[in-house]
Every structure is written in structure tokens, then in C-alpha cells.
């Protein structure tokens, strides 16, 4: 009998747990440890944030789903990993803490760390909805708060007031620019729908060197007889919608009604707002690791940014020497063969976008995104390897390198079944491979993007399909990640 423990019930952890359970025998156990009682289909939080959906439409309780599937569920936040057990018991275990302060000792034979990101609003003074002056759509409750604030602004505009909206990222090292991009174009669409667009000034603020970078170094798309960088498409989309933009910016401070920022050329700026939705930077969740004697070995298992070390090449090297092969393939810890990290929890070897620093040394460059499709695919590959290892394989049998997989992404740009649009994009591979594709790092025939109503239909279809899959309804295994 083997015990597989998954820390985290996000897209990656939930996928890994569901597949592991379906592939393992009844003598083996699968346990999920997660602090939240609900699953959240994060990509649809955007629609909660503009008031088109309620949090209940993008979440569901995990306990009944896991009970039906035969997965044990511990509602608690993972705190520690003891990969060698302790002096009394040599078997490895994790420690988790539930909201009521109870400590849970969860023994494992195989551990998947899929704890996702910690939302580091604290990295920028005044950032965030909890004690700060800006809003967020990272969590369903944050998004609902943003929707309520938006409704108030719309009421003011209906009375004739002009309002300033600021959307983007709240720190120079943020990732998930794509989510903020979706939010700003949905916001603009909603203001038009509600008849107050003429009263709104909308500005995008980003750490990207150029628009359309999205933490992936941008994309080159074949269109109209040209190979065109995504910056052109992004700028076109904003210009068409009357959205201004500030690029290469690190938000230093958010005050009531204004942000202070620094840009790559060293200049300082400020931007006023009545409504600001700014995403936070991420780090790992701060798991600690201890050896058998109780000595802290956190720095052996984790990078300084608290994400877990896996089979990547973490040797520091200049941008010119970055290779696709630096990226992990199996997501196995180099120190402990029975520990894996999946989704956002693994430490990337380096960014994908070109790194930049301001004259004062501030890093202003997006961190690499690893959400959605890649997270789910990594979770599934890790689960598959573990099942094979339980069956006797000596090493992981499955790989899911972001430099070998593509991604399909649909970015909503307005939700309406007849007038809405979305940008549909595919990239292959996610991490550019300049040895395989010397010109642009990606396959030109499989990297494409277009905007239209069809994209919105696909976005709606994916919302329902992936929630159906996550509920582990009949046939869920046949829905691709």
C-alpha cells in the first residue's frame, strides 16, 4: 500500500490527485491537503471581477467531490515537510495546520507540492484589497470586491462624474500579465455596455518591456503577410478601445488615489486613479523542510523565492546562455526521489522574458507564467510518473517540459454571446527554443492569435468543460488539460 499526498487543490494539485486516484489501486491512498474548502476555476475570476458572475459560479466545495472519488481531504495549510521523518519514526511526513489551530501530521510515500503561489501584496507598500488601496481578482472574494467597487464607480459616472481606472501589475517582478490584460479589456467592454465609457479614463500599467510580452517574451504571429510581434496586436487592441498604457514600470507605492512608480530608464512617475486593480507578485507559500534530526533543510529543497527546486538547471547564467533544456522535465526533487513539485510551486530556472534592471538596480521584468494548461499537464505527468514508480519504476517515466509543450489560451475581451470577443492564442513551445526554432524560438505555424466572437464562445465552452472535469463527472478523464 502506498500513500500519495498532494499539497494544494488548485489546477495542478487537483488534476494530479484526480488522475493518481483513478490510476492507483484501492489499496493505495491519495490525500489532498488544502487550506481552502473550495476548488476555484481561476481563469473565470475575471468575470466575477466585472460583475458578470458570482463567486459560486467559479467555485465548488471539494469535500463531496473527493468523498465520491475516494480521495482523503485534509482542510489545512501545509507548513512543513519532513522528508526523512524524525528520530522516532523514519517515515516521511508533512505537517499542516487547520484554521482552528490543529496540527495534522500527514505521512506519505510520495509527495506532490502543488501549493501554488503566495500573493505577496506586502512587497509593494499600499498594494492589495486587504489593508491596501487597490483591488485584485486573484481570489473569488477579491474579484467580488472589485465588482462591487466597479458598480459604485458606474453609479458615480451615471451621475456625470469622470473616473480614472488603473489596471495592471503592482510590482516590477509580477507575472500573470495575461489575467490583468483580460480584466482591463473586460472592464472597458462593461463600461461601454453600461453606457458610461465616455466618463472613464482607462490606463494599463505593466512591468513588461513591450506590450504583449505576458512574461513569455512576447510572441511572433503570422498574419497578413507579415511575422508580427504581439506588441503590435496588443497596442492595436488598446488603441482601438481608447486605453492608454505605461510600460516598463515598477509600482513602488499605492496611496489612496495614486500610484508612484519607477520606470526602466530611471524616471519616476505617478498615476492617479479612483479604481485600481493591480495584481501582486508571487512567491512560494513558505514551506519549511527539516531532516531527521530536526535541522532546517529548507534551502536544500527550496529556492530563495520559496518555490521548490526540481530537475531544472539553476546555474546562474546570462540571458544569451539560457537554453530550453534548462527547464525541468520530470519535476522531481533532486534530493528526494519521492517528492515532486507541480504547477506554480516549482521554481523556474530563470525568467522567459529578457531581464532588465533600472539604473537604481530595480528588476523590472515579468516572471514566467505557469498557470492553466501547463499546470494541469505538469500535474498529470507527475501523477503518472508516481503511479509508475509505485508499480516498480526506478525513475519518473513521464515528462512535461514547458520548453516542449505548447499552450492554448483564450483571453476574454468582452463577454456577450453576440457582441463579445476574445483573443484566441496558441504558442508552441511555451518556453522559446532557439536551438530548434532559431528565428523566433517558436514554431511559426503553431503560434497564432486572432480576436473575435469565436474566441468568446470557446472561453464559455472551456469554463463549463473545465468545471465539469474538475467536478470529476462521468467521462472527465477524456477532457484534455
Amino acid at each position, binding site marked *: 500500500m502506498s500513500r500519495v499526498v498532494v499539497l494544494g487543490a488548485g489546477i495542478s494539485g487537483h488534476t494530479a490527485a484526480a488522475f493518481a486516484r483513478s*490510476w492507483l489501486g484501492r489499496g493505495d491512498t491519495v490525500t489532498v491537503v488544502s487550506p481552502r474548502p473550495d476548488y476555484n476555476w481561476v481563469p473565470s475570476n475575471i468575470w466575477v471581477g466585472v460583475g458578470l458572475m458570482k463567486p459560486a459560479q467559479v467555485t465548488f466545495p471539494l469535500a463531496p467531490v473527493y468523498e465520491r472519488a475516494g480521495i482523503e481531504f485534509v482542510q489545512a495549510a501545509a507548513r512543513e515537510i519532513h522528508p526523512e521523518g524524525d528520530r522516532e519514526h523514519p517515515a516521511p511526513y508533512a505537517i499542516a495546520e487547520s484554521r482552528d489551530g490543529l496540527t495534522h501530521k500527514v505521512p506519505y510515500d510520495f509527495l506532490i507540492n502543488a501549493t501554488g503561489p503566495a500573493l505577496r501584496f506586502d512587497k509593494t507598500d499600499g498594494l492589495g484589497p486587504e489593508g491596501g488601496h487597490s483591488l485584485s481578482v486573484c481570489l473569488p472574494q477579491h474579484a467580488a470586491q472589485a465588482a462591487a467597487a466597479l458598480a459604485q464607480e458606474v453609479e458615480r459616472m451615471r451621475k456625470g462624474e469622470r473616473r480614472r481606472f488603473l489596471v495592471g501589475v503592482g510590482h516590477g517582478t509580477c507575472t500573470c500579465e495575461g489575467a490583468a490584460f483580460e480584466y482591463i479589456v473586460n472592464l472597458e467592454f462593461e463600461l461601454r455596455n453600461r453606457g458610461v465609457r465616455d466618463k472613464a479614463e482607462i490606463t494599463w500599467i505593466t512591468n513588461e518591456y513591450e506590450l504583449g510580452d505576458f512574461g513569455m517574451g512576447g510572441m511572433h504571429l503570422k498574419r497578413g503577410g507579415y511575422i508580427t510581434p504581439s506588441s*503590435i496586436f496588443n*497596442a*492595436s487592441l*488598446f*488603441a*482601438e478601445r*481608447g486605453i*492608454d*498604457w505605461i510600460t516598463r514600470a515598477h509600482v513602488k507605492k499605492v496611496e489612496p488615489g495614486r500610484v508612484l512608480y519607477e520606470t526602466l530608464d530611471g524616471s519616476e512617475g505617478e498615476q492617479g486613479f479612483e479604481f485600481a486593480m493591480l495584481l501582486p507578485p508571487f512567491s512560494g507559500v513558505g514551506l519549511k523542510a527539516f531532516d531527521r534530526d530536526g535541522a532546517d533543510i529548507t534551502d536544500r529543497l527550496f529556492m530563495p523565492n520559496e518555490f521548490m527546486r526540481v530537475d531544472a538547471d539553476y546555474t546562474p547564467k546570462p540571458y544569451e546562455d539560457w537554453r530550453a533544456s534548462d527547464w525541468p522535465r520530470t519535476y522531481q526533487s533532486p534530493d528526494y526521489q519521492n517528492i515532486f513539485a507541480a504547477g506554480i510551486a516549482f521554481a523556474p530556472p530563470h525568467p522567459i522574458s529578457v531581464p532588465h534592471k533600472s539604473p537604481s538596480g530595480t528588476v523590472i521584468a515579468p516572471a514566467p507564467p505557469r498557470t492553466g*494548461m501547463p499546470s494541469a*499537464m505538469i500535474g*498529470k*505527468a507527475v501523477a*503518472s510518473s508516481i*503511479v*509508475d514508480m509505485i*508499480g516498480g*519504476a526506478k525513475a519518473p*517515466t*513521464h*515528462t*512535461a517540459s514547458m520548453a*516542449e*509543450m*505548447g*499552450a*492554448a489560451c483564450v483571453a476574454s475581451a468582452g463577454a456577450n454571446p*453576440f*457582441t463579445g*470577443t476574445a483573443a*484566441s492564442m*496558441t504558442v*508552441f513551445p511555451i518556453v522559446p527554443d532557439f536551438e530548434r526554432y532559431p528565428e523566433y524560438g517558436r514554431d511559426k505555424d*503553431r503560434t*497564432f492569435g*486572432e*480576436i*473575435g*466572437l*469565436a*474566441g468568446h*464562445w*470557446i472561453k464559455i465552452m472551456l469554463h463549463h468543460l473545465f468545471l465539469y472535469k474538475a467536478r470529476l463527472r462521468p467521462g472527465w478523464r477524456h477532457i*484534455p*488539460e
Partner: protein
Amino acid sequence: MESEQASYATKPTRFTVFMRTFVPWQAWRFAMINLKMIDIIRRSHHGDSPK
């Protein structure tokens, strides 16, 4: 009046904007985009099930 940065950006023609929400054309694009995405998914999965 549009901002200076917007004046340097590419903008779609009225025909392009019309086609973005023209249902028959978009139904065709729906099928084509799905095929492209299926191709990406197929190429990205390396034998997912345990051996």
C-alpha cells in the same frame, strides 16, 4: 482625440471589426481555432497514462 501613443498603433478597418462578430464567419473560425488548439494539445501530451 486619441492619445499620442494610440496614434502610432495599428487599428482595424470597419470591415475587420465587423467580421469579428459576424456569426457565419465566426462559426467557421470557431471550428478552425478548435482544430488548431487540438493540434497543440496533441503535440503537448507525451503518453500521459502510466506505463
